[in-house]
């Protein structure tokens, strides 16, 4: 691979690169060896600690139900947050100030406070003011917090998606006599949703990651929470962490790859306007998206 930052390596540069590579590998090997030693020291490499993961019990009793709950909360949150986000995103572009301003305030508010705060609050709120059962409460609280936060992030995604469409689309719709609502629902939204798909899938990664908060802080039985039950049973803290991290990486990496595949496909496709919205479009260009309040508090993927 050549880059503009450096020339195609000549004999000297090749030699230097080899030296640097060797030094780097040596350093890396040293660190890995140190980690390995440390693991061995503390007896974390013993087969008895890893063996549970080869049995079906560890998976069917702890990990798979945990993963199932993680995905359930993430999927429900996404399904509820999408229409809500679309609603707020469109409201923010309204011609009426009394619709536009409150929608903007709500979106900016929920984008600028941590999900964890929302989760703790929702959990306590459900405990005091509703008769949601103790078993269901963590799930409700996790979904409520994720919906509020992600709906406001998605509102910005929807807004950016609609603004990214060529002006001619709106003008043509008005020219053939469609009303504002019709223009939005039958011309702008369908095209914007296609362009937004990669950004929506990327947001799903954020949701999956945020469910883990519910596991630690309000006792929702998702993957990280089942990890501690599993580790308490088999006394294998480090192996269980590694396995759970790998599961998260596989799930999220699949989603990320799917998002970039979608993005590439949309960019190549001849149909449509060619407008594609990725998480970067929203993140890198807050000036175009941020609006009057412009906190850009999303940091969508973080």
């Amino acid at each position, binding site marked *: *691979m050549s*880059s*503009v*930052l*450096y*020339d195609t*390596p000549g004999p000297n540069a090749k030699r230097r*690169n080899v030296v*640097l*590579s060797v030094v*780097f*590998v040596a350093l890396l090997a040293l660190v890995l060896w140190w980690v390995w030693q440390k693991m061995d020291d503390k007896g*974390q490499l013993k087969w008895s600690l890893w063996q549970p993961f080869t049995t079906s019990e560890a998976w069917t009793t702890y990990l798979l139900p945990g993963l199932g709950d993680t995905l359930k909360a993430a999927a429900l949150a996404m399904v509820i947050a999408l229409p809500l986000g679309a609603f707020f995103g469109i409201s923010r572009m309204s011609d009426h100030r009394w619709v536009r301003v409150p929608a903007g305030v709500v979106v900016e*508010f929920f984008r*600028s*406070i*941590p999900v*964890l*705060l929302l989760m*703790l*609050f929702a959990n*306590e*709120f459900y405990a*005091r003011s509703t008769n949601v059962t103790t078993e269901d409460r963590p799930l409700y609280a996790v979904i409520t917090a994720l919906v509020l936060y992600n709906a406001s992030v998605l509102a910005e995604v929807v807004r950016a998606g609609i603004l990214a469409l060529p002006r001619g689309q709106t003008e043509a719709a008005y020219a053939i006599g469609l009303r504002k609502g019709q223009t939005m629902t039958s011309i702008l939204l369908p095209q914007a949703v296609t362009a937004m798909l990669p950004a929506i899938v990327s947001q799903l990664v954020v949701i*999956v*990651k*945020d469910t*883990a*908060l519910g*596991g*630690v*802080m309000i006792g929702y039985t998702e993957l*990280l929470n089942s990890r501690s039950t599993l580790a308490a049973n088999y006394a294998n*803290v*480090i192996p269980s*962490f590694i396995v759970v*991290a790998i599961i*998260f*990486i596989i*799930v*999220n*990496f699949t989603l*990320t790859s799917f998002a970039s595949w979608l993005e590439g496909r949309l960019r190549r496709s001849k149909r449509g306007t060619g407008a594609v919205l990725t998480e*970067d479009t929203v*993140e*890198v*260009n*807050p*000036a175009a998206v*941020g609006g009057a*309040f*412009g*906190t*850009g*508090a*999303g*940091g*969508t*993927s*973080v």
Partner: protein
Amino acid sequence: MFDFLQGYDVLGAFWMTVKLTVLSALGSLVWGTLLAAMRVSPVPLMRGFGTVYVNIVRNIPLTVIIVFTSLGLADIFGMTLGAANDFKAQGFRLAILGLVGYHAAFVCESLRSGINTVPLGQAEAARAIGLSFGQTLRLIVLPQAFRSVIGPLANVLIALTKNTTVAAAIGVAEAAYLMKSMIENEAQTLLIGAVFAFGFVVLTLPTGLILGWLGKRLAVKR
């Protein structure tokens, strides 16, 4: 109306949040810049390491990383970061370690996209006058890249401010940790929620506005 605040150190908790944010931000800026330099370097192995690091860290929940620093690094491996007997200081340092490791990946990605916005001619001209890779990056490309990614970096900083709440998972006495105990012990759920939400709005809103303004001012006009 606000007498429920008596006996709770709300300002102290937010001060902890600010300390976590500032220290982690500095750490992740340094580590993230190093990672970005690796990802564009001429040595394939460093590029590979950068790519693998970013892809692994980005896909693990921050909560998993933070909890691991406490239950794994400290409890099992005895990495107490020089605070073996001081549980508070230990949690604080471990939380910063986790936050830096996680957010550096995002700083790296923002910087890399910034490096891509620097026109080819800049790097080509730098090479034409005989600058090495390190000099090109340090003197020509990175200064311009930094100026163009202030907006995205501000987004990472705001996300970092909000993500410091995850440190509550390992008992660091910051805002979310205090809110959890307050909300469980006091009757005014809504008011307590409002106070803490207001605190975070106060922390994140100026960051976005100031850095957004700075980003526009400093952006390289092309």
